[in-house]
């Protein structure tokens, strides 16, 4: 693979008195490694020390105490009302929960307090009056940013095996490139260090990184294959065939695959089992995205609706009628707030992705969008053929104009914003282009969650941690917070069953004595035997009943002990 040098700058000078002002070059592109502040544990600790010291200042002294935290910020971290002591029995438990609630409160406040440390601000371009940001060309931007940032804008000319598809890792460090005709490469796109480059000698339909950058899945002509970062084929999954689309759900360790026949399959990559498969009745599944908020898969259909799927239900959990024409493209923004759908009716609609009740915006664009993509900061890229338009502030409020515009010479096949970078990777018919889009990436990152500057040991540690925190696939549902609720219907049933036990009566038995020879039986004996038989039945019944009642308690105990005895530690991942 050749990496061409950046093109020599055009002769055309930008006029000094160009009305467009690119404000503070450093701010335009937020990425400056040295300036980055990672909120490490050490920093947090230091900060806490300081704040605690401030707290110790007594009342009435001239030195003011801790600065108040703005309420809005606190609300962001607030998880709802606490437990009232009235709802708890036992004095010690009450005391314990009071203490715990205090800690929770402190946690919320502290989280809000340390937000000050997220000092990095996202960049952007601002236009002067009478000018528009969309007039700025990519070249102008590259010219005006620092060298490191300028290096992020590059182009790969790959004429032979196109059209190309592109995917980034979740931390934005690595990139996967796959041509339709079998060319596939994984590399660190910033250093341009190649991890592997192979040709699978089959058509490639989609690619996807797994939980780490060392493994990726590739939907080939027939089956799903998994490769490692050296290009070695690790698995060939014959169970999953004719795949059109791939998505990886990182918290559930699920690789979701949508097949050409409209079959959705979820593969648990931690154990290698297909945990769910659903027939969508949508042939030629062309659009499939995941909702990062609740890990539900969304597929667009030719009838203009978007169906949402979980591995737990054969029917869609929700169906949204979006367009009166086929849905051509869709995406959900990384925070899970907004969903954008594009139809062949030349419309792009923005939906509230959580309660689905409302269309937030409707845009009529001059073409039927074939690709829609959201960046972390809410920029929306819409493309069709050679046209690429990027919109800013288009979800909550209606935008009037493009933020940036780019025209290609080849048809765009696929595009993705790179996480934590102001970069849009665009796969085209004949290569790949990396565009600089100021203000596209999230400026502050949580290194404990996703770290773009991760090194090997951190990656390994993170893998283990992620495995320990793996969420069972059963928990995927439209409302992710359902897990914090009590299953009330079952609870009611159980209580009723328990209560019913008290009202069961012993069975009546019909005792018929054998006919005995004269003088041997006698009515007195018969009556006595009858009584004995009845008593026996009664006694057995009550014994069984008491066993049942006690059984619930003892069962739980045995269950617990069994769990300890039989299940090895990793059993819970099954």
């Amino acid at each position, binding site marked *: 693979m050749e990496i061409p040098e950046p093109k020599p700058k055009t002769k055309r000078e930008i006029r000094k008195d160009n009305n467009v002002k690119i404000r503070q070059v450093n701010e335009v592109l937020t990425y400056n490694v040295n300036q980055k502040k990672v909120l490490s544990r050490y920093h947090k600790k230091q900060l806490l020390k300081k704040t605690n010291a401030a707290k110790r200042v007594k009342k009435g002294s001239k030195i003011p105490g801790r600065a108040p935290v703005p309420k809005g910020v606190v609300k962001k971290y607030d998880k709802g009302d606490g437990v009232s002591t009235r709802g708890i029995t036992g004095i010690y438990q009450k005391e314990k*929960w009071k203490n715990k609630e205090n800690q929770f409160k402190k946690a919320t406040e*502290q989280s809000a307090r340390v937000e000050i440390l997220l000092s990095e601000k996202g960049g952007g371009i601002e236009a002067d009056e009478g000018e528009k940001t969309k007039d700025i060309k990519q070249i102008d931007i590259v010219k005006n940013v620092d060298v490191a940032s300028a290096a992020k804008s590059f182009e790969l000319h790959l004429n032979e095996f196109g059209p190309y598809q592109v995917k980034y890792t979740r931390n934005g460090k690595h990139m996967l490139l796959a041509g339709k005709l079998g060319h596939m490469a994984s590399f660190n796109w910033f250093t341009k260090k190649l991890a592997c480059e192979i040709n699978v000698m089959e058509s490639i339909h989609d690619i996807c990184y797994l939980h780490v950058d060392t493994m990726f899945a590739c939907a080939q002509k027939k089956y799903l294959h998994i490769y490692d970062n050296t290009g070695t084929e690790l698995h060939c999954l014959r169970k999953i065939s004719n795949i059109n689309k791939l998505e990886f759900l990182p918290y559930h360790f699920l690789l979701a695959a949508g097949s050409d026949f409209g079959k959705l399959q979820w593969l648990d990559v931690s154990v290698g089992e297909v945990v769910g498969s659903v027939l969508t009745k949508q042939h030629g599944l062309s659009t499939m995205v995941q909702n990062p908020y609740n890990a539900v898969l969304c597929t667009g259909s030719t009838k203009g609706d978007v169906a949402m799927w979980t591995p737990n239900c054969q029917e869609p959990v929700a169906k949204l009628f979006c367009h*009166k024409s086929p849905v051509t493209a869709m995406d959900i923004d990384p925070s899970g707030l907004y969903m954008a759908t594009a139809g062949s009716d030349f419309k792009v609609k923005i939906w509230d992705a959580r309660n689905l009740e409302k269309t937030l915006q409707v845009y009529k664009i001059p073409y039927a969008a074939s690709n829609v993509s959201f960046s972390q900061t809410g920029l929306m890229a819409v493309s069709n053929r050679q046209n690429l338009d990027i919109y800013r502030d288009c979800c909550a409020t209606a935008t*009037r104009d493009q933020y940036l515009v780019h025209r290609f010479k080849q048809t765009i096949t696929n595009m993705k914003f790179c996480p934590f970078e102001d970069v849009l990777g665009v796969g085209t018919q004949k290569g790949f282009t990396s565009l600089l889009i100021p203000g596209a990436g999230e400026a502050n990152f949580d290194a404990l969650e996703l770290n773009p500057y991760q090194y090997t040991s951190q990656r390994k540690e993170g893998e283990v941690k992620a495995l320990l925190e793996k969420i069972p696939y059963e928990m995927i549902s439209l409302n992710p917070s359902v897990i914090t609720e009590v299953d009330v219907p079952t609870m009611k049933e159980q209580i009723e069953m328990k209560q019913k036990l008290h009202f069961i009566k012993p069975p009546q038995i019909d005792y018929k004595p054998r006919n005995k020879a004269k003088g041997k039986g006698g009515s007195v004996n018969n009556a006595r035997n009858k009584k004995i038989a009845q008593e026996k039945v009664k006694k057995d019944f009550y014994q069984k009943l008491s066993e049942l009642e006690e059984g619930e308690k003892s069962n739980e105990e045995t269950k617990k002990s069994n769990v300890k005895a039989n299940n090895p530690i990793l059993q819970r991942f099954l």
Partner: protein
Amino acid sequence: MDSDVSKDSYNSDSDIDEKTHSKLLENVLNLSKKKLVKKPTRTEATSTVSEFDLVKSSGNVRLLELAKGLGKSKGEAKLAKRLFKSTAETIRKPAEKIEADRSHRRVAYKSTQQALDKWDPIVTSMRAAPTLSFPLIDQNLEKDESKLECWRLKSELQQKLEEVDPKIEEIHVETNSFPLTLQEMLEKRQEAAKMRVKMGYELAKAKRLKKIKSKTYHRIQKRDKIKQQLKEFELLQKTDSEAALAKLEEIEKVRALERVSLRHKNTGAWAKNKQIRAKYNTDIRKVLANQLSLSKELTQKIKPKYDSDDEEAPTQQTQVNQINKDPSNPWTNSNLNISKEVHDFVSGYRKYWEEKNKMEKGEEENSKIKRITDCSTPMVVESVPENVETLKETPSMECELHDFVKDERLGSGDKVANKPSKSQKITEWKVEKVQVNKRKETKKIENKDFKVADVRLDQKLAMHDQKLQNLFREKMAKIMKSWNFKVAESEEKEVVRPSGNMNLRPVVTKPDLDEELLETAGNDSDDDDNENSDPLKNVNVLKTLQTAEEAREEIDPKKFIAPPKTVYLTADVPNLVTFNEEQALEENDNQVFAEAFEDDDVTNEFAKEKAEEIEKFNPKAVDLTLPGWGSWGGKNLEVPKKKRDKFTMKVPEKLKRRDDNIGHLIINETPNLKLRQHLVTEVPKPFKSVKDFESSIRQPLSNSFVPETVFRKLSAPKVTTKMGTIIKPMDEDVLLLKEKRAKIFERSFPAKDTRKVHKRRKSKI
């Protein structure tokens, strides 16, 4: 002693011959043969008695010695016996062994309890503490700062500062450890002793009184007590209304008990016996009657007295008025004033008529019968029943009156007609109104039929009357207006309220944790607080709610929420880019495709799908009819509708769905059975309700969700021990640091609960 002193001073002053001096002394001593050494008196409270104070006293006469002299005659022996009778009580005989043991145990238990009680606070605090670290920190060491000081390095600045500003040593002023003087102590003791004696008296008295068997005595006592209580109640009523209420409740309770019991109801055996004799004996009849009256007295309800102003007219109507009265309602407000005006007016009117009556009485006593018709008017003013009576005398008038009353009913509105008699009886101003209307009516009658009789009336009076009438009519109209309105309003309330209570309560849904975008179309105004504030307003609110409900009821699967206005974005697709033919074709196709879909009925299709989905989840009515059961059945015979209706199990018509009224959305409501495995199915131990438990698990605890410090505190072990140290059991020194512990203890066991704790301990012991 004084003499000794004088002697000393004498010696010191001058040298006198010792012999003479001693002689003098002897002489002096001989002068009075009393001893100079006085009886010892104590000046200080000491337990030891000085040996030097022991002086033989011979002056006292002992009773015993005196009595020895008494002879053995009858009288003297008696006297002796009386004298020797000891006033001291005999010592009680020692308690039996079981009893003695029991008391021993009791005392031992109490003392042990006290000894253990002191540990309560610290035990509680340690049990409640989130973390404990052993060995417990030596508090004394921590307190002694001087010890710590020697380990602390001082900076140069600190040292210099100390030089400049030497530390001032605190001077401890010793406070008196005995707060009371001896005198005060003694006084206190005396007072305490007095109190004890008094208590003893009281106890003895109570015992004695309790032992009295006389029933009459107790009866009288009881009656006195009740009277006393009543008195107190009346007194309290003036001073402390709350206490009075409590007292009233107490009295009421006694009354209730009396009412419940069969006492004084002449139902007992005694009464029955008496009743037999009562036939012949009037006295016994009286006794029985007395009993009944007593019960009446005891079960009489006590009414708090009204003030003089209120006493006049605390009729039911005013109460009703007060209930209906609403500060924001102008009608009800003005109503009261008007009624007062009318009242004044009517009383003036009455006066006038009385005067007139007198005049007429003087003038025409002869033509009384004829005038009855005329005079009906003043009587009407007096009171209605009287009026009716008077009219009864003239049957011809009776029907007229009836008619008039009917008219009146019609005039005043249908609602009033439903209970006219009641209103006449209850309401004052209403009565007035009716009366006056009658008056008006009668006036008309007068004008029509009795013109001849009217001729006699003074012209002036007539004029005056007319004026008054006009005035009154106006005012009445006003009242009627208000009154009608009020009726209408109450009607509305009656109609609307129940529905409001039954259905229209806004459903309280569980709030989503992070729902910011929700902009609900329906206006779920939850005005629980305002509900009772203003009836008029209430009606409005209810109405709007009702309409909202109506809207909800009509669930239209095709109903779409109007999307926001489409924004047309003009992306100028450049012409520079050359299309190849294939692409152009594709483009064309796309357009064609879009156009083709324009007319296609995808919307209807979706609506149909949704309807099916809803149908699938709606419970269906179950038809349990058995054809041929109780009637003929066969191939062409249909089961009658009545029967089918009777045997179909009905289900609530529509279940509420999340996607109701959202045409573009179908939400699958099948429960996620796989998820249920992971859900908690019972509320675990310390929590009382589902809500409490749910809120307890709302907060994630791992360090990726909460700050590190809090995470450490939340995940800290309950007990930590320091390696290589001996963990000794607590000693009593720990008890000294108590402020904090006491606080927790008090919070955990508030004063009333202390008994519980003891009880628990008792069971443990």
